[in-house]
């Protein structure tokens, strides 16, 4: 059967399978049928030769080496900075995140209210760029990573105990920014609040936000 005499559908189906004959992914019967077809079909035999050229030119360059270990270290650092993935407590985490979002929204609303209250009429609006020091926005700020096990009630208790509220976050890495209430942010008081946070089993990480030089 030549390409000209073969039924159009059958020839087209053989032609279509050539790439997968080349990469060895046809079944034995399919490969055998295509080999038999190519014995008598000049068009498919020529296509096979041409595609083999393309196939061979696209083979991996085995001489290129990659720094796999170093790349994995970057992934490790990223995993270390993030909360552990959920296994069976997916619902609990979702609930925790929703609660944290509500707390964050309430915190931001309270903060916004405080700013409105304490901004003199006619005072120029204060703008802050992403590169400005975070601490310039208000009281002392702390960066904190909580465990996924922390409940809303525990989060509220913790925030009350240190007179702070959530002013930002969570980031992609799960980092929250807490702002200590104005007037309670001397160096000593900040250190005391950090000690409370670090002693809490549900706090993975707590550090002060340092102003840019």
């Amino acid at each position: 059967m030549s390409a000209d005499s073969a039924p159009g559908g059958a020839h087209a189906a053989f032609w279509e399978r050539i790439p997968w004959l080349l990469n060895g992914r046809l079944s034995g019967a399919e490969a055998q049928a295509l080999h038999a077809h190519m014995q008598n079909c000049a068009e498919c035999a020529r296509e096979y030769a041409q595609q083999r050229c393309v196939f061979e030119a696209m083979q991996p360059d085995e001489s290129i080496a990659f720094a796999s270990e170093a790349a994995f270290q970057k992934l490790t650092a990223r995993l270390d900075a993030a909360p552990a993935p959920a296994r069976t407590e997916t619902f609990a985490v979702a609930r925790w995140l929703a609660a944290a979002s509500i707390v964050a929204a309430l915190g931001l609303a309270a903060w916004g209210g405080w700013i409105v209250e304490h901004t003199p009429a006619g005072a120029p609006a204060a703008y802050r760029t992403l590169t400005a020091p975070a601490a310039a926005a208000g009281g002392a700020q702390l960066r904190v990573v909580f465990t996924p096990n922390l409940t809303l009630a525990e989060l509220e208790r913790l925030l009350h105990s240190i007179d702070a509220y959530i002013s930002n976050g969570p980031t992609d890495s799960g980092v929250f920014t807490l702002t200590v209430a104005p007037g309670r942010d001397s160096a000593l008081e900040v250190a005391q609040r950090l000690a409370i946070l670090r002693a809490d089993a549900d706090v993975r990480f707590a550090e002060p936000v340092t102003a840019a030089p």
Partner: protein
Amino acid sequence: MSALSLAPGPRPRRASAEYAAVKLEPHGPSRPERAGGASAAASDPRDRALIERIAAHDRAALKELYLLYHRRLARFLTRVTSRYDLAEEIINDTFWVVWQRAGDFRGASYVSTWIMGIAYRRGLKAFKRASFMPAGAHDLPEQGGESHEPWSGAERREWLNAALERLPSEQRLVLELAYHLGHSCEEIAEIMNCPVNTVKTRMFHARKKLKVLLPALAGIEPESPP
């Protein structure tokens, strides 16, 4: 590639004579390290065991799987994005998802197909940026027609890579997944989250467009019998 030549000349009249020499090669084209096929089938039990350990938050298992796949993914992603830094970012995004979602792997496909599907989705934007260069953005190297061996070695790769950059990203990726990584039609459909017929159509158009972009390709004839 001595058997394939671009040298002009009369075509053999009988297809069987043309094809005979192709079949004489006992093992077919070279088969380096591949993601699909027998290689995937052989490595899948090992990969599944690692995925189970990763689902239990075993960092050592994550590292083992990462090191098993990094080279293959880095080579493929660097090839299609032309940037190793971007390739590494996509790989680490992929394994971030593997770490988070290992417990969701149901075993409906090879682990290698599952991982490649994640990498495809994580790298989609980068693939689209890197592929389908507008005409003139990356001119095709001149294809010499007079040389006796113009379609060989590094020159062949250079022409082909430049032509591949002119293909729409979906068509190029089907070719890359089949030829560079050795995936089956069904695996590619799963990786690209599309019907098998879409893969076939993309492969069809990729092959047709390559012939237009690489006139030298059309001159390649099957080997003559020895």
